[in-house]
């Protein structure tokens, strides 16, 4: 009984936590994409942008499709060089190396797997779920409202070999 109550509470807390299962907004996608400009070694030319999702989680699928549509329709005002590619989180390793990955909503259970991939391939991972960056599993966390916030996990950045310009680092939150 107690265990069931604890699990129930945990699920409730996870549901309440900001970013948990919440769809990524267009503004957050725009902010995340713009962060790429401030990498010390950004990708050159046309580069794939992995939209990492879990086909078994509806929230994740819907979010990834929204992200892809925004990017394809140029609503995200992204750089032409970034080409969106939907990537099943379970098939990450079967795909070519991605330099940039945007993590769709509802992917909490896969943060460890994504981080392992990012560390091996020096991938910049971006998420609108700040719990990912706070846990050191994503390099960049973004918030769109009420105020744009960019949070960098220095530990994740170090692990993944990601560096940002000095001026940019001074204007974001690092932890």
């Amino acid at each position: 009984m107690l265990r069931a109550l604890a699990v129930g509470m945990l699920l409730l807390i996870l549901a309440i936590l900001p970013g948990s299962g919440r769809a990524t907004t267009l503004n957050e996608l725009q902010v995340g994409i713009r962060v790429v400009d401030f990498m010390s070694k950004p990708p050159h030319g046309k580069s794939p942008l992995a939209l990492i999702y879990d086909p078994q989680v509806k929230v994740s699928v819907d979010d990834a499709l929204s992200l892809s549509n925004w990017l394809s329709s140029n609503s995200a005002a992204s750089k032409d060089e970034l080409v969106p590619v939907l990537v099943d989180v379970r098939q990450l390793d079967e795909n070519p190396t991605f330099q940039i990955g945007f993590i769709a909503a509802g992917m909490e259970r896969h943060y460890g797997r994504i981080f392992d991939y990012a560390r091996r391939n020096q991938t910049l991972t971006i998420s609108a779920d700040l719990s990912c960056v706070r846990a050191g599993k994503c390099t960049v966390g973004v918030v769109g409202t009420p105020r744009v916030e960019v949070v960098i996990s220095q530990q994740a950045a170090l692990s993944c070999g990601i560096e940002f310009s000095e001026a940019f680092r001074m204007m974001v939150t690092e932890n």
Partner: protein
Amino acid sequence: MRRTSLLLLVALPWLRLSADAAWAQGLDYGQYEALFGEPVTSSATGKPERVSDTPILMELITAEDIKRSGARDIPSLLGRLAGIDVVHGSSGMADLGIGGYIRPLTSRIMVLINGRQVYYDGFGEVLWPTLAVEMAEIRQIEVIKGSQSALYGFNAVDGVVNIVTFDPIADPVNSLTARLGNQARRDLTASVTQPLGGEAGVRLTAGTDHAQDTGMVTKTSTNTAYAKDPNRRSVSLDAAANLPGDGRARLEASHTDVSARTIASNTFFDARVVTDSIKGSYSTESAIGRLDGTVYYTVVDMPWVEAQPVGSSHNSDGALVGQLSDLLKVGTDDSLRFGLEARRNAMTSAVLQGGTVTGDLSAASAMWDHQWSPRFSMVNSARYDYFKLGRSGVGARQDIFSNDAFDRSLEGVSANSALIGKVTADDSVRLSFARGVKLPSLANFGILQHYLPQYSGSPNGLNYYENPDLATSVVYDYRIGWDHHIDAVDATARVAAFHDITTKSIGTANLVTGKRVTAILETMVPGWVSNGVELDLRHKVRDGWTWGGNYTFDRLHEHSDGGLRDAFPEHKINLNVGYALNGWDADLYGSYVSATKGVVITPGTPPTAAVGWVKSHYILSPHIGWQARDNLRVELAAENLWPYQDSLPQRMETSYYLSVTVSY
């Protein structure tokens, strides 16, 4: 001609680019503003930061604000901010003050264009029309109130105005504006930006302004010679390139030629001022942080200066400045900045009969910014300045100083400390303390020594001496401010208060007292205290209603009396309301400034001066703009629907004008 200029390409052979530079970094204001959805600045602390994050109380005028203002010049724009006072010496010449002290030709604020000081070193003065910048190329104007000597050195004791222009790579400006108005106003400005290979660009801007001289209150046969029509011609070049390896280079060059009339205490001036400047800067990311190097050279030449007591003279001032800085982030919460600066300033004057006064300055500075938590951060900075004075050549007639008297040095330590607490999502509190150092100008030290026979009733005449023994004065500034966002009306409110202490000031030999003495020697006299409160409320949108207003109460208490003791308008109110829809925009700006004391000049040989009252005055300036096509904007504006006086010798007349801007 359009967008292609062989001349520009020839002028920039150093821009050799590589595809590898495609993502090169630099402090690109537009790029950061797009990321954060708000302007960014590096003026407040020397560290790039979002305006809402800076611990320093600052104001920002954006390009959109400028477009909606209807203002023709920068002093008119700045005068609409809380805590900024404007006094006109003529229709085109204005002096600005921040924080309760303003006297003609006695500037205490530092003005910069993209970080280059445009302050006229020799006279310690900002001659606004000589600034080689046109309204259309301004991205934002950053205004920092209170002493900023720890960042900008001697003389930034009451505040800093940094004018940031659009980036020639990322923000092309291609427009032409023609303006016609009463008082024979004829203005023309044009900018053209030429991209060079995608990672470099150059902007060329030229402008010419002309109007009739108006508003001289006491115009008689003895001073009509000083009422020449104001003219201004300006040309500037701004080139930048992103270089491989995160480097960024920028070259800026400018030339202005200005003729204008003004006043100083008790006398009329008419001068032609020719200013030439060239600046090169380079920044790059390195293992020890972001390195910036800047070198610039500015020459301010006055081929003629006509002043009633002095007669004709020719002044020339050259300033060579080199700056190096290293900005780095240590860990997750600390940023450091180390800086070195060297400056050589030399001024010659016909008044000095061939002499040259020089000032060599060396400075070292450090800044530490610490983020206590996402809600609290602070910045501390300090700077040491060493100044070496010198003079060579022939002194003035009846000179009481030898060149050896100028062989001396001064030094000073400045400090700034500020804290921001974001106490809620809608509330920020800022506290700051500053210790600034004010250095006398080269003119104060010794360039204006002169024999003034017309002021004397005795055969010995009157000798007017500057003084090489002048000292620095220290300014202490304390500020507190509270910003609150009012969700219900989507407006931002600010309440701020300050307390300023200036320990010493230069006793101005302004002749106001009319005493007949054989010599006037400038000396250091006790300074003053000023206290003030500022209230500001504003709601800004692109479409729909926009409105705002501010009220400033300043009280000045001078410890010495130069004839104008405590002369300062205590109350000032600015209000604006506007509406924009479907390409139309209309705005109305109004101001009220309370009465104060001023100098009455009675023309004659010699002119005489007395203290009188400048009445309280109202300013009303409407404008209406129409974006007729994507590339065509028409604007009808008026300045000063009621003529007013903010100084006794000058009345600001009503002016109307029509502007047409074509973008290409």
